[in-house]
């Protein structure tokens, strides 16, 4: 069965504007991104972005548009377990802290 929410893996130049480029491209076409994870690739000036997106006819066109972005070096469609993104909230859970409104302290 085809995964309803496939994941794209992007290698991008690591600089402050790159996320705007990637997200803007999806937003403009009213194409929702379900999940995003971004991590720097150590020892390089690149980052890796995983995008969980919706399957559909539009996806191929989205990949081609992503490949046109100058800051996107490559776009892959890795065969990830469909629940990879589902497991992420549990991994971040123990770090959650409540910050009071107006508080300037960050735990």
């Amino acid at each position, binding site marked *: 069965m085809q995964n309803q929410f496939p994941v794209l893996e992007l290698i991008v130049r690591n600089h402050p*504007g790159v996320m705007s480029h990637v997200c*803007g491209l999806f937003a403009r076409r009213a194409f929702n991104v379900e999940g995003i994870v971004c991590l720097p690739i150590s020892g390089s000036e690149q980052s890796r972005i995983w995008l969980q997106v919706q399957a559909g006819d539009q996806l191929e066109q989205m990949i*081609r548009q992503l490949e046109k972005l100058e800051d996107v070096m490559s776009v892959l469609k890795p065969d990830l377990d469909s629940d990879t993104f589902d497991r992420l909230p549990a991994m971040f859970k123990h770090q959650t802290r409540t910050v009071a409104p107006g508080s300037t302290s960050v735990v």
Partner: protein
Amino acid sequence: MATSATVLPQTRRISGAQLIVHLLERQGITMISGIPGGTVLPLYDALSESSIRHVLARHEQGAGFIAQGMARTSGKAAVCVACSGPGATNLVTAIADARMDSVPLVCITGQVPRDMIGTDAFQEVDTYGLSIPVTKHNYLVREIADLPRVIDEAFSIAESGRPGPVWIDVPKDVQSAELDYDDVAYLIERPALPEISSQSILDAAAMINAAERPILYVGGGATNAVEQVRELAEHGHLPATMTLNGLGILPTDHPRSLGMLGMHGARSTNLIMNEADLLVVLGARFDDRAIGLAEKFCPNASIIHVDIDRAEIGKIRQPHIAIQGDVGEVLTRLLPRITSDGREEWLAAVSDMQTQFPDHRPGIEDPLTHFGVIRAVAKCVDGSEIITTDVGQHQMWVAQSYPFNRPGQWLTSGGLGTMGFGLPAAIGAALAEPSRKVLCFSGDGSLMMNIQEMATAAENDLDVKIILMNNRALGLVHQQQSMFYRENVYGATYLQKTDFLAIAAGFGLDTCDLNAAEDPETALKAAIDKPGPCLIHIFTNPEEKVYPMVPAGAANTHMLGE
């Protein structure tokens, strides 16, 4: 290849602004358009000591379109400059227009100093964020040392593959920072053109040779392949239609030319395309104004799509054969494999259709009508002229009836459809090609949108003629409201009788009132022949329509009008 205009000593202390100017000179830039302001003053200081000629526009949008005029004429990236905040926001329209029509530009704006970015400083706007969706690429330069790479990359990106605008935002303190610059040859290598598979060439040739009723559908992406397109049309006996931005690739009077297709294309052309069994798409992108309802466009045709931009292939219609590549290179490899089938039957059918549905040009003998003035203007010049237009009815009438003879002769805002394009684009064309006359057809609605650039034309004494068809209305809006909104014309007529002749004279232009001339054709010829900027004014009827017209969202065979 870029040339080095200024030879710097081996190493010297140099400011960011001086570095930018040096890098522009190294790219071969001799002229830029712009307007100074607080955050680009270091750059202007450096420009004042350089070999580059600065053309002072009267509005940043004008500066952007002046650069477009230079770029569309020369095919090379042109440069415009503005300050932060309103300077940058005013540029957005001209840059978005360049992106839609694949025009190479490098746009440089000042930004507030780095430590003030994000503080809502005076004249601060998020230029980087604003420019993302309207450019091919953009930069916010955070370190002076990045300038050589950024500027060289910007020209490479703007001019390679599918051309487009690149925006470079440079904080003021980066412009005034200094570094030791040794003139490293940082000119980066341009990306190689995509590999073209031999099999796809063989497949395309076989499909063309086997087709009985093929049509070439030629867009702006074939501008650099004039010889190859002509040879394919002639040798293969293929009728060719052109998009708005492809006009001129085959001369209007070429026997294989079908003129323009689409919403206001020739009636016979839209009907002929409906019969085609093969569509060879060369550097065109199935724009909705060209193809109408996508599912019903050439319903019986197989499609071969050649485009340098992979993302255009399959975007609207899935081709049977897709070839990503430069149109000229693809055709050069394809041509030796095309057999010279006479296709007498198809050419006869095409010719019959053209006889049965001739172009309708009411009033063409009378120079005081819309079609008549276009023809009269064409008779005053020798074919070396450059034509620009604004956007609206006049634009479509010129597209339908002007005798174009080459690409680069015709500058018009196609994709974005920007009123106000015509005059500044004409100024840019006249600056880039001072030996040619530049004729700008405009309407009163459009001209008013960048009328301040008359001052720029006068100040630089450019050989630009504005042919103003004044119907005291937004003609194409008037037409659509008349046709599709119960004749409820609202917000589309100008009650104020603006005196354009007095305004033009006030800006320092010559003027020619065709309606008042004893012999309009003689007056027109005299006005066009005399060097320097001139406004040629003619009243037209707001009730006139651009026909045929395919309603938005309808199939191209569903044409309204005569």
